[in-house]
């Protein structure tokens, strides 16, 4: 079991999409996998020291809304200013009430379990991010760095 490897690519920077990579990474590490995650484009938001992740009902018809709002609330209403913050707050409350870990918690559990996190250097340059914006323990590299690990991994997923 010690030899199994999982390679993930995390490309999304919203609260909801932060969960799959960190849940899979922390769990795989607990099962004995050697895990590496490559964070690229909006996925790099998941490595920021201060996470300010949001979830948006805009353009997301699959998102269940409180009070069955998705049934009667006009789609255009999801574009109203403040909707994103309200939905993010409600989502966080719901997660807490259901015993779902926070993204911060899953991220630190992943790091603790030895998951390696690689930030895409090109994205850092593209968006003028500062090295100081990111948590400790992140290394930076490119596609070749990812392939170096993914090439002989047992599980490889693009999230």
């Amino acid at each position, binding site marked *: *079991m010690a030899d199994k490897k999982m390679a993930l690519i995390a490309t999304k920077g919203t609260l909801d999409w932060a969960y799959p990579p960190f*849940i899979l990474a*922390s*769990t795989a590490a*607990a*099962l*004995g996998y050697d895990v590496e995650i490559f964070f690229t484009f909006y996925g790099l938001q998941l490595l920021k020291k201060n996470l300010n992740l949001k979830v948006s009902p805009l353009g997301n018809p699959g998102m269940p809304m409180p009070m069955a709002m998705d049934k009667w609330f006009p789609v255009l209403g999801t574009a109203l200013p403040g909707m994103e913050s309200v939905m993010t707050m409600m989502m966080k409350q719901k997660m807490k009430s*259901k*015993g*779902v*870990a926070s993204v911060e918690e*899953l991220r630190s*559990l992943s790091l603790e*379990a030895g998951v390696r996190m690689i930030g895409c250097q090109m994205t850092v340059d593209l968006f003028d991010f500062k090295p100081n914006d990111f948590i400790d323990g992140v290394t930076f590299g490119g596609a070749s760095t990812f392939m170096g690990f993914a090439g002989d991994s047992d599980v490889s997923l693009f999230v």
Partner: protein
Amino acid sequence: MSNFDQELDARGLNCPLPILRAKKALNDLTGGQVLRIIATDPGSVKDFQAFAKQTGNELLESGETDGEFTFLIKKAG
């Protein structure tokens, strides 16, 4: 109920926390010792089976009473 060496209360926690906490607790045990876990996440039943299968730690018992799931896992020696 069989004997156990340590107990983990994972009630109210959702996936994947019961597994992650159990893994941590097992790290503190020595081979052959038994961890008892109490959880309320219905998904944990399948998850602990899969965990045991993949890690080599043996799932000795798995049961449910009043919406609470209990597991006995023996750490691989």
